[in-house]
């Protein structure tokens, strides 16, 4: 895709014809990556602010309100504070792994932004194995978390790392299984294609969420499993403030801690974006087809819709976090293996049978065809 962009750029601007094509392609790639990363970091920073504000509202408090108007610049202040903080590496820690771990977590979380279909044509790289890629690259996080837990040379951190490993490995299965119905319906692993497959029918009824009862259930199963994937309450046992102090990042400070922190919020966005793309129709809204709009407007509009849906899911995660207590580690495993895994398999079976029996038609389509 980048290459085709580069070719069209060269065609449009004849001055560039002397430059080797790969240079232009590389430049475009770097620019796109920079845009995505900037977005991801800004989002993460703002998400921390929103999280605190949501927590404040729920807890009958105010939340951050001192830095900037209504405290909106709090995340900048926090970021500067974390940058300026002393970077502590425990004396007996495994220095190399200790330093490496936050980067792995960060990379694992933010590399997934590449395939997020932000809008019509707004995708950094439309991989044809999009979902697969996301599942694979976010699993890198668990390696980083485990390394962090191990290399800190702290028993609490070790316990946190081990918990995280067990948790993420277990929850990868229901997450994957819960996403498969969307893949089945669209017949593609590419997120762009999955979103496209949910258009039509006044927007909302084309969503996979309403395709059939099984996909409806699938969404909730996915959302629960994704909460666990991102280590959010009620599944935040790797961090478990009140048990493991802070779990795997207990020994981290300053900017390295910030990496873990940003990665957590990045993860939240990625799983919410996947939910939006796979079940909530991506950028599709009722009565308005973004792809039919003029190019730039269509892009921006679809971006807005997509972000709106995704961020609502992120806020929902925060809301859940500030309501629920935390599970115990064995209960967490029980939820995964006794409830989520069987149910997602059941769902997958249900969706497959549905598609087979009704020739890929969802309930709204059938109703629509009844009325002609």
């Amino acid at each position, binding site marked *: 895709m980048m290459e085709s962009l580069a070719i069209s750029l060269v065609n449009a601007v004849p001055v560039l014809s002397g430059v080797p094509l790969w240079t232009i392609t590389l430049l475009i790639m770097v620019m796109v990556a920079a845009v995505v990363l900037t977005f991801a970091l800004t989002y993460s920073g703002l998400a921390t602010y929103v999280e605190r504000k949501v927590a404040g509202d729920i807890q009958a408090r105010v939340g951050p309100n001192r830095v900037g108007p209504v405290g909106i610049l709090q995340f900048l202040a926090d970021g500067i504070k974390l940058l300026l903080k002393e970077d502590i590496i425990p004396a007996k820690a495994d220095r190399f792994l200790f330093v490496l771990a936050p980067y792995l977590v960060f990379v694992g979380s933010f590399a997934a932004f590449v395939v997020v279909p932000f809008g019509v044509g707004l995708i950094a790289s439309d991989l044809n194995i999009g979902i697969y890629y996301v599942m694979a690259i976010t699993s890198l996080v668990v390696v980083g978390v485990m390394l962090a837990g191990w290399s800190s040379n702290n028993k*609490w951190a070790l316990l946190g790392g081990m918990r995280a490993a067990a948790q993420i490995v277990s929850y990868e299965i229901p997450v994957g299984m819960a996403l498969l119905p969307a893949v089945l319906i669209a017949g593609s692993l590419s997120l762009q294609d999955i979103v496209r497959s949910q258009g039509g029918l006044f927007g909302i009824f084309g969503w996979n969420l309403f395709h059939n009862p099984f996909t409806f259930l699938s969404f909730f199963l996915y959302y629960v499993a994704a909460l666990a994937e991102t280590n959010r309450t009620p599944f935040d046992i790797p961090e478990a403030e009140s048990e493991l102090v802070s779990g795997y990042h207990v020994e981290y400070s300053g900017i390295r801690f910030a990496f873990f922190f940003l990665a957590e919020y990045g993860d939240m966005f990625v799983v919410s974006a996947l939910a939006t793309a796979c079940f909530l129709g991506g950028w599709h809204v009722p009565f308005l087809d973004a792809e039919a709009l003029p190019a730039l407007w269509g892009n921006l509009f679809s971006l807005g819709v997509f972000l709106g849906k995704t961020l609502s899911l992120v806020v929902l995660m925060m809301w859940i976090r500030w309501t*629920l207590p935390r599970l115990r580690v064995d209960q967490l495993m029980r939820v995964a293996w006794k409830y989520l895994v069987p149910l997602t398999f059941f769902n997958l079976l249900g969706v497959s049978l549905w598609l087979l029996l009704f020739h890929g038609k969802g309930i709204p389509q059938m109703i629509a065809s009844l009325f002609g």
Partner: protein
Amino acid sequence: MKARAEALPTQEMLINMGPQHPSTHGVLRVILRTDGEVVVNARPDVGYLHRALEKIGERVTYAQYMPFTDRLDYLAAMNCNAAWAWTVEKLAGIEVPERAEYIRVIVCELNRIASHLIAFGSFTADMGAFTPFLYAIRERERINDLFEDICGNRLTYNYVRIGGVSADLPDRFLEKTKEFLDYFAPKVPEYNNLISYNKIFVHRLANVAAVTPEDAVGYGLTGPNLRGSGVPFDLRKNEPYSVYPEFDFDVCVGTGERGTLGDCFDRYMVRINEMKESVRIVRQAIEQIPEGPVMAKVPRMFKPPVGEVYFRAENPRGETGIYLISDGTVNPYRLKIRAPSFVTMGIFEKITKGLMIADVVAVIGSFDIILPEIDR
């Protein structure tokens, strides 16, 4: 199998939980010996907050010791104040005006609500839900406001005096208390909806660290912890002191409603229900409070007769017993405080065997221990 076990040796981990840990409620240190997540042995190590309150008691006068009782159980300072006053009055045979006793009961029960609110809030925070904690604090602030009106401090009240209370109730105090009770009464069902019966919360607590009634009595558990094991023993009912016989209230006991009898959930629910009972008591006390003086005549150089007395009062954390020996001088000769949390810690090692690390946190929270009282 054996060969594999040898090839992959496992080791027990020795983990130091505390004295600085978010959920040991202060500076409790628990030396955990764990097999992975499972606790093999958890040995409490107390004493990080030892301030020699019993030794101080031998140096100061009876009246001067009152502010130190604030520091015993700072979440229920009124109760500790009153317990000390009742002990000395029992020793010296002082008749306390009835109005003073009613005031004491009102403030003690309000303080019991405040203390149970903290128990509830910090327990839920230990369980990972932080929001109820702030709701609990919010309600407790209103009780603190009431106490500030009455005695001028918000945490260490030093309000009760030997022979009465330091000052009569301020204007509008009873009305304000009533307003608070009207505000607070619907909050308890809200807590239940918010968290008490939440599936995750129930699962975290039910069947965890169940204490049998025999163990509870033998290990000297008292107060809500004893009642959580289904033993209906409440000093206010069974060994009434002050004007408690005047009031109609129920003794809340654990029923094992979501698991086994005496588990963490039962202890938790006893506290929640006791808040309702305290509301009832305060309402009755407000109705019945007589007019009159609030202070008996106690000489300034107060010298009780020679003797030994043991008095126990039902405090939010169990019975605070004070064993007081007087040699007839102005200072107590010996003063022993039987702190409920301290005795409760005796059972800790026994019931945490085989639990998970997260359950240890639940056990600490469900016993509602407070460290200044343990370490004195």
